[in-house]
């Protein structure tokens, strides 16, 4: 019974570490180009990803974008 007191927190902590690692990898853009990653592993050269920049105020033009999608 007393084993639970450290086993369960360890299990949960490990799970949380996995979750945090996944969220970090998602945020750092590692899923942006899965096909490219498969090809780049064979390349010898240095490989520096471009850090994604958030655009402060996107200004979509009229007529661009999916009208139907927006309306539905």
């Amino acid at each position, binding site marked *: 019974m007393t084993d639970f007191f450290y086993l369960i927190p360890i299990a949960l902590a490990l799970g949380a570490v996995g979750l945090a690692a996944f*969220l970090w990898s998602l945020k750092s853009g590692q899923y942006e180009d899965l*096909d490219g990653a498969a090809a780049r592993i064979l390349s010898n050269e240095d490989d520096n990803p471009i850090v994604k920049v958030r655009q402060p105020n996107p200004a979509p033009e009229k007529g661009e974008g999916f009208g139907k999608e927006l309306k539905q």
Partner: protein
Amino acid sequence: MTCCAPSVEFADARFDRHRARNDEMLLASHDVGEGLRQTDLSVPTIHCGGCIQKIESTLDALPGVEQARVNLSTKRVTIRWRADGAPPPLIESLSRMGYEAHLYDAVADSKDDTVAKLVRALAVAGFAASNIMLLSVSIWSGAEPATRDLFHWISAVIAVPAVVYCGRIFFGSAWQSLRHGQTNMDVPISIGVLLAFGLSLYETFNRGPHAYFDASITLLFFLLIGRTLDHMMRERARVAVKGLARLAPRGALILQPDGAQIYLPLSEIRPGMTILLTAGDRVPVDCRILKGQSDIDCSLVSGESIPQTAGAGSLLQAGTLSLTGPLTIVATAAAKDSFLAEMIQMMEAAESGRSTYRRIADRAARLYAPVVHVAAVVTFIGWVAATGDVHRALTIAIAVLIITCPCALGLAVPMVQVVAARRLFEQGIMLKDGGALERLAEVETVVFDKTGTLTLGEPRLVDASTIAPDAFELAVVIASHSQHPYSRALVAAHQGPVRSPTSMTSVSEYPGSGLEARIGPTVHRLGRPEWALAGGEASHSVSEMGTIVLSKNGQYLATFQFVDRLRSGVHEAVAALAKDGLAVEVLSGDREEAVRRLASALGVPHYSPVSPADKATHIASMEASGRKVLMVGDGLNDAPALVAAHASMAPASAADVGRNAADLVFLSESLLSVPQAVTVARNARRLVRENLIIAVGYNAIAMPVAILGYVTPLIAAVAMSLSSLIVVANALRLGDSRRRNQHKGDSPKRSLPSSRFALEGRK
């Protein structure tokens, strides 16, 4: 432009074009700080690791480029360059390597992060569901009451943030829908999850034996899988469609009163401004020609397949393409009042006129939610009446809600649609959302536009073998100096090596007339018969517009006939659609005769010439009379009709507006994409129905058990996972049925003659 010094003008035009391109790149790039600007290019032909290295090393070596990065999945290149100099020649360098590239608006694209949000929610739900399930399994295996209560508390601690974080996607949408007095799928989901969660918290506080934390969070997890897949499918299609070449210009080169030239974005062009337009540019706004002469390709705007000659004083509509000569034009309307804007207004009108389509899942929810909720309430009242135990009655009523929670509806429908979208994607058809697939399966009539849809809108030389080889060769040499579609068709039609041209002193292009080449004292003319021949008047056989002649000092040498090329697979596609029981029509803005010829060869009724507004009205009236229409079109003039139709498709070569308005965009050249899409949509509809039947059948069994009070959290978890697995497995069958159908359908299709119907020129 004066006819005496065309070559000088040509040089000017080329300089302008280069400059306009630099300005356009500057306009399409954005500042990323530290003195750097970023440009995104779409390069559709990237396909392997070799391409990545080649492109990156070449672009990195360009002066001014800080870093280039290829994304193989989206077939895009991101380039950062130093803002202090002129933009590096990125597109030119890529085209020298053999990669066609075009500018891509990353800024307009970056706003959609729904998928990222869904994936994050999915990850959190997965973490919470797996841990709570582990704890629940030990409870189900018979943990002692003290341990059970402890585990309930731990589950609650995990579940509270998880339900709040993952559930808000459903709760928000359910609340929105309830506020507008409607129900959608998210309403029963939210009610089920929240009640189960609330009951479990209550049980935990009161040390009760049963808690449904695992059920509520697993439900969210399964539903999030469906929703995430749905969004990823849409995102993929969106990126693919966005990556296509942009046909509308970003801006135009303005000639200011003081003689200075400045490149202005489209939104800043005012009526009265003088614009310099080079050959090969699209007209940015409605305008009048001040100076110059050119052949104007109106196919995207009006559906006319044959270029029109325009000179000083002619009015041009925004979106037409100037083919041969540089023009000086004066804007008569701002971009927001131009032809394009008129089309967008018409699209909005058509959109509001169309009955809003309710997706199958939402329609099912409308029937399903009341039944389930009534059943739960009746159960509660019944148990209170029978036993007087309110707590027990409430527990059982909530168990009814959990066991009937629409997992199958929430997961099965998107699952089928994702699999269908994948099948379509493999065939080069981009599906923009699942609702479009459901609508496509319902269509009864297919309406085609002609120019650009049934035909490619590009001329093809006919009877090349009957032309005298010497004259043909000479014509090809002359034609290679021009960008006019006829010239390019002539060059493309010639096979084998061209003898090096005899010393040609000069070749000049006379827009609207043709090409003139001087070889010493002799003058060769390639162009309109009445211009090229000395007699002035054309003889009977050469009076058509689809005909040009080659002459030597005014003497006739050879005739070249052109026809509009048919898209491949047109006959097969129409036959396949007819076989599937669909009516086919042609609706075109082109001249009656050209349309009639094509339509009668295909054996389908036609309507022409039809204005853009009439197209939309025609479709709307068919819709009003109860016929569900699939509109297939490419032009600006088709855009309102695309919106008015029940479902719509556009080829990748369509105008930007049309491409964005259409539900599906097909990238392949063959029109067979249309019957393929209809087949996939119908198969998908069948599977969705099967899944709904499975879901209802499952509920028919599970609900009585739940009402009688036999459902424990263990049974709920098993039943829910099992039903989800069954519907997912059923959805995956879509791939098999496609392959079966293809094998069945392939052999007769191949045996059809792949004849190309030739459409004669006009007049």
